[in-house]
């Protein structure tokens, strides 16, 4: 009993186990539906485009961004949540709870797996100008924005909202996510870091 209590609540303070995180994300989706909207983060990129006034030249962005301000507010809240959790909740300087196989593989690629959330060999401001830093950040970011809108949604819209509403198109999208993800993981990333 005590062991279960510890596992659920004491350890969970430092590191949220998958079942709590998954349940929490489902409740976030429920809260957004209850408030009269839906869970889909990538739509905000379209809203940001619309805010630049590009709608005058492209119908796709000819929307009143104020109708999407709820989603921007949600987005700002998630940034605040990220700030609070990272600086005041997650144990400072802790190594991630990664699997042994991942740690070994990263070490063999010259990346320190104990350094926190992001590989600074790629993403630190000094290394961002390296070929790997540039491609993974800029080409990767571009593909996320382009692909999410083409597919009509990202992980929140398709994998969570769509699959849990039993939408076949979302299953196709998630299969696509994995085809692309595996190509990047097994071909592009090893090539860039090799």
């Amino acid at each position, binding site marked *: 009993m005590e062991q279960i209590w510890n596992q659920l609540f004491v350890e969970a303070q430092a*590191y949220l186990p*998958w079942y709590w*995180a*998954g349940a929490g994300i*489902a409740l976030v989706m429920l809260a*957004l*539906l209850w*408030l009269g909207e839906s869970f889909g*983060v*990538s739509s905000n*990129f379209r809203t940001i485009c619309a805010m630049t006034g590009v709608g005058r030249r492209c119908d*796709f962005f000819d929307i009143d961004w104020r*109708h999407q301000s*709820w989603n921007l507010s*949600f*987005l*700002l809240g*998630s940034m*605040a*949540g*990220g*700030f*609070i*959790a990272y600086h005041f909740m997650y144990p400072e300087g802790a190594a*991630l709870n*990664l699997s042994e*196989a991942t740690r070994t593989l990263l070490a063999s690629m010259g990346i320190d797996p104990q350094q926190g*959330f*992001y*590989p600074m060999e790629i993403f630190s*401001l000094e290394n961002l100008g390296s070929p790997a830093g540039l491609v993974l950040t*800029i*080409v*990767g*970011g*571009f*593909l*996320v*924005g*382009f*692909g*999410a*809108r083409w*597919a*009509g*949604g990202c992980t*929140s819209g398709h*994998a*969570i909202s769509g699959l*849990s*509403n*039993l*939408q076949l*198109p979302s299953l196709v999208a998630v299969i*696509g996510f*994995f085809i*692309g993800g595996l190509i*990047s993981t097994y071909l*592009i*990333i090893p090539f860039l870091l090799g």
Partner: protein
Amino acid sequence: MKVADKPIENKNKKPALRQLISFFVVGIAFGVIMVQAEVISWFRIFEMFHFHAFHMYGVIGTAIVLGIFIHWLIRKGIIRNVRGERIVVPPKAPTYKRYLFGGIFFGLGWAMTGACPGPMFIGLGAGFLHFALMIGAAVLGTMAYGFLRDKLPH
């Protein structure tokens, strides 16, 4: 030909400040969960695509299973929205090309950046500045899609 994207309806709603605060608070919960479960980490996405750990599959799988139950309650009319009305979740357009091709493009980027759109913003909030550049690139990608939309298969 015009392709219907996720409709952005004009329900004549410019949300009131009180509503915006509600969405902000839900956002805080989302951000905290995503940090505390390490989901925003590049390493976790790397690990997921190598099938080295159950963690990410557990997170997404639990959300889907509980989400199926939530959608079932919504269809039954047991869960209603804040105004007491039935919630209608519109189905996705029954096609496959845009989902497959768009999905592959998204997946290529997801593994490279180690972040889907939510974690990009949450990570920026946590203070990782490479996300500012990445978000800029994603906005450009979305803009490119908007201009090329009529030429892409859907």
